[in-house]
Each structure stands twice: as C-alpha cells, then as structure tokens.
C-alpha cells in the first residue's frame, strides 16, 4: 500500500513538471503584453516600459525566465500577481474554498441524482422509464454549460424569481469568513436567513455544473449495473430468498459502482474546468472567475499559479480515487 502510494507520487512529479512547462509557454503565446495591459488606456513611455520589463524580468531570455519561475515553484513561491501585487498562493487559498464548495455540491448532485437514475434505468431496461432517463442524460451531456446556465437563470431567476441570479450571498449579510465555505460560515455567523440565502445562491450553479457529470455517471451506472445484474452471484443472492430491493442495492450496486468510481474521479477534472465557466456566468468568486480575469489582464503569475494548483488538485483527486478503489474492490486491495 505504501509502496503503491510512493509509486503514484513518483508519477505526479514529472506530470507536475510538464504542466509548468505547458502553462508557462502557452500563456506567452497569447497575443498581448502584460505591461501594456497594466498601463491601461494611458500609453507607456519607452524608458518606463524598459524599466518595468527589467523589474518583471521580461528582459531576460525566456529560458532563463522559465528556470527562475521553476526554482520559485519548487521553493513554494508561485510569484506575485502583476495586478494586485499579492502573492498568488494567498489569493488562491482565499478563493479556493468557494470553488471547492461549488465543485463539491456539483459532484454530490451528480452522484446522488446520476447513480439512482442509472439504477432505475437498468432495472427497468427497455421500458419507458429507461428510455426517459437515458434521453434526459443524453440531453444533459450534450448541453453546453454556458447555455444551460443561462437557460436556468432565465427560467428560475428571471421568470419565476425563485433563486438569485448571481453571487454567493445576499448583500444584506456580512460576516468574516472562518472556513471560506459559505454554507458553514453562514451557519456560524448566527445571522438569521444567511444560511438560506447561501443555499439559494448555490442551487443554480450546482445544477449547471453538475449536469454533465450527472449524465455521464447515470449512463455509466446503467451499463455497469446491467452487466452485474446478469452475473451468477445475483441469481445466487436471490436464491437465498433476499428481497429484490436488497439484492439490487447491496449485491448488485456494490459491484456496479466499481467502474463508476473511476468515472467520478475523472469527472473531477471536468468539474474544475466547468467551474471556470460556471463561476464566470454566476459571478461566483472562486478560482475559475479569478483565472479568467487574470487571463484578460495577462497576469502571468496568477494564470500560471492558478492552473498549476488546479492540476495539482486534479492529480491528488485521482490518487485518492485510486486508493478508494481498493476499498470498494477487494480484488485489487494492495498487498502490505
């Protein structure tokens, strides 16, 4: 188990290295000069421009710049934002809980709706219920997030007025963040109605973000469940006189979930990618929105640091899923 962990950690390091390489050079391919962007509408004089270039190290050859950056990264220094002058890691850590909260809700939505839908479809194979759930999931899978999010806002926020259009909390409430998770902080604050407000702000982004993973999970659960239901041990379980509900929920689902868990792990990456769009649309103050803004301003350290941290989170999540796999599936439990 420990050996396995070390081997997997060993895989992470070259991947991490590759990500720094990719991010560093790709950003510099985007047209636009960060110093000119910083200067804004006022143009900058050539002397001042050269001065600033030297200050940010842009006068160095790009290889040297990359090497300097890499040295910083391995010392835990992601640099400072050009715009806010604050360390990138601090900004990331402040905003990250908001994204985690959204992503967590999204994946919970996806799992708790997707898995039951898949099971329902599988046990009613070929009947209308199967066709209905599978059409829903295909539609969900095919829908672009930004469009789906706008539809949700138009219907539930604008027309029906059930939920707020954007943000994390109504402006009526203010309290110091403790955990950074609005659902928890609003409860801790003790302000009446704050929690309800936080929940109502979360609903639409959660649905928008969770729809694609939900669809993927539902389809995966269905096909995996169908395969398991045809297994001999399901018949044996029924021959023991166990009620059909227990046979499906205990004997079949436990086995059917094994491939689904892999898919859930893979969806974490999709989710964080989707969070960038979702956060922008719903003005959700998380890292997605933060990175998009940094891109508009060519704020290199922020973009690099943000993407690097996201890559790190995705890799860690996949490692956790692999470890989880061993718990669910005794056949691949790693030898001590």
């Amino acid at each position, binding site marked *: 188990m420990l050996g396995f962990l070390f081997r997997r950690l060993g895989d992470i390091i070259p991947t991490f290295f590759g990500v720094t390489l990719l991010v560093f050079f790709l950003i510099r391919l985007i047209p636009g000069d960060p110093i000119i962007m910083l200067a804004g509408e006022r143009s900058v004089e050539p002397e001042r421009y050269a001065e600033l270039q030297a200050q940010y190290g842009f006068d160095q050859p790009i290889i040297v710049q990359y090497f300097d950056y890499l040295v910083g990264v391995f010392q835990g220094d992601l640099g400072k934002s050009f715009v806010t002058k604050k360390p990138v890691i601090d900004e990331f850590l402040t905003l990250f809980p908001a994204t985690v909260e959204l992503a967590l809700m999204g994946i919970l939505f996806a799992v708790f709706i997707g898995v039951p839908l898949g099971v329902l479809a599988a046990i009613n194979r070929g009947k209308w219920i199967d066709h209905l759930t599978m059409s829903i999931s295909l539609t969900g899978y095919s829908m672009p997030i930004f469009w789906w999010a706008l539809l949700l806002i138009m219907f539930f926020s604008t027309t029906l007025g059930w939920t707020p259009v954007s943000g994390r909390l109504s402006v009526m409430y203010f309290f110091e963040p403790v955990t950074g998770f609005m659902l928890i902080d609003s409860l801790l604050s003790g302000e009446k109605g704050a929690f309800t407000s936080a929940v109502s702000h979360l609903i639409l982004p959660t649905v928008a973000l969770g729809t694609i993973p939900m669809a993927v999970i539902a389809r995966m659960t269905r096909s995996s469940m169908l395969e398991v239901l045809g297994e*001999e041990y399901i018949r*044996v379980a029924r*021959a*023991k*006189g*166990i009620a059909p509900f227990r046979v499906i929920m205990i004997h079949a689902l436990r*086995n059917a979930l094994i491939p689904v868990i892999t898919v859930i792990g893979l969806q974490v990456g999709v989710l964080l990618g989707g969070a960038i769009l979702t956060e922008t649309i719903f003005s959700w103050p998380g890292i997605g929105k933060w990175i998009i803004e940094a891109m508009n301003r060519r704020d290199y350290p922020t973009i690099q640091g943000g993407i690097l941290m996201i890559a790190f989170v995705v890799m860690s999540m996949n490692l956790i899923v692999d470890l989880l796999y061993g718990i669910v599936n*005794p056949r691949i439990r790693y030898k001590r």
Partner: protein
Amino acid sequence: MALLEVKNLTVEFGSEDKPFRAVDSVSYSVDRGEVLGIVGESGSGKSVSSLAVMGLIDFPGRVTADALTFDGQDLLNMPAKRRRQITGKDIAMIFQDPMSALNPCFTVEAQIMEALKVHEGGNKKQRRERTLDLLNQVGIPDPKSRMTAYPHQLSGGMSQRIVIAMAIACNPRLLIADEPTTALDVTIQAQIIDLLLKLQEDSDMGLLLITHDLALVSEAANRIQVMYAGQLFESGPADSIFAAPRHPYTQALLEALPERSEGHDRLRTIPGVVPGQYDRPAGCLLAPRCRYANDQCLKARPEVTDFNGRDVRCFYPLNDQGQPTGMATGETVL
C-alpha cells in the same frame, strides 16, 4: 405426500403467439430423503425447470403448471414475499460455477451470514458461530481464517464448498444441485458429490441432482428423469433405467459412456445437437437424431405413456433386448 410435486410444468420465453418452450409439460416429484437425478444434454431444459421451482424465472419468461407444490403449499400462486420465505430456507439451490456464484465484494462470512439473517434471525454472534459450524461441516480446512476471505482468494473446490454451506445454512428440506461438479476437476468432483450425499443422508433432505454425468447419477440417484429439448423422455428407478433403457435416447446416452464402448475403436456418439428455438422438428423432437425413427416419428409427437411401469415418451419403447417394440422390421427411415 411428496415434498416437491411438479405437474406439467411449462416455461415459455418469447412472444405470446409464438412462444419458445424451454420446458414442456414436465412432471416429477421428490420425496424426503430421496435423490432424484435429472439428466440430459445441454439445452434440454434441466436448469430452467429447476430455476422455475426456485421462482427465479424473470419476465419475459412465463411459468405455468397444473401443480407446483412444496410440502402441500402452492408455490405458484403464493405472494412473492411468502415465497421468498421458502426460497433459500426450505428449498435451496447450488449452482454450476462456484467461481461466479459468490459475490466478489463480500467476505465468505458475510455471504453465509446473510442467508441466516434473512431466515433465522438471531444475533451476530450466533450467526457467526453457526457459520463456523457450517464451514466445518462442508470440510473446509482452517475455517476460522477462511471466514474473512474474499471469493477471489479461494480455489474452485473451496468455493463450491462455501456455496454448499450457504445453501444448507438454514437446514433446507429440499436441495437442488444444478450440475454442482461440472466446473470442478475430477478429483474434486468426487469429494463434492460425497459431501452432498452425506449431507443429504444426515438431514434426510430431498435432493434434486441435475447433471449430464450419467456415471454420477447411477451412483447417487434413487430415481432418474431423462430430459431432452425441454421434454421428459423417460423416468423410473435408477437401476432399472441403467439395466434396460426404454427410450432410444436413454439407450444412446448409455452407449456413449466410455465404459460401455469396449471393443469399439471410437466412443459412440449421438449425431447432431439438441434442437434450439428455431429448428424444432415437426414430429418427435429426437427424430432427426434417432436411429429407429420412421415416418410416424417424423410427423407426430409422441405423448408420455406407461410402459412396463416406466414413463416413456416414444411410439416404440425399447424392450429388454434394446429393440423397439411394435415396429415392423426394416421400417426405419434413417
């Protein structure tokens, strides 16, 4: 009264107007302490008929019968919940392939204790003790350490012992063993059969032994039922069937036994295969493969008749010399 009474059991699949009969009006009974052997080739409906007894035929399969009773209770028309109380407790079943019969995600202990929990209740400690007893009973060495093993850590023979332990956990009165040794190698086969027969004798269970191994039933069974393409072809006491088969199919099966082929260069076989859903002959289902078949056999289907105290489905049952009776000589067409 017989423990299990099956009268004209029919299992159909496919559409209502053009159904496929996997089991066609099969009748038999099993008594307490009796071993009934059901033999036949693959595709003869042996397994399907036993699944029907267990209530494990799912939609779109249709099960009908004039009578399907266990200990006088009508299995076919009782509520599903009541039937589940009998299934797994009074009637238990052992399946063909032990390696796929155990759920890979649960320990041996959990799977045996589950059956106990559903039917017997009791607390966890009692169930665990009973499970240990059962593992001892089915001859598992070092049962304590096997309790927490997962199926993938067990050999085939060991798995089958676990499956048997699971089946006898609630002291069933009838045990259905569907080819319990087919997936095992020969040395283990004998051990498993000995174990089954010992358990059967010890607790006076009825045993329904489904197999295509004639040598096995000849040793184990009191009575034998020969099935072919979903139909009953011949039934009677085991020794008399082996001494003098009345049905040409039984005769051919027996002749195919290696020990009866002495003096022949090759083992004898029955040409062709069991007809499936789409190639059912119009007449007797065996006619295309029967060495005695004549015109009548090709055109009409014989009914089960009583011949010298045995049930036989043939127009021309065989006499003690193994020759068809009531047929003019030289009449065969094949």
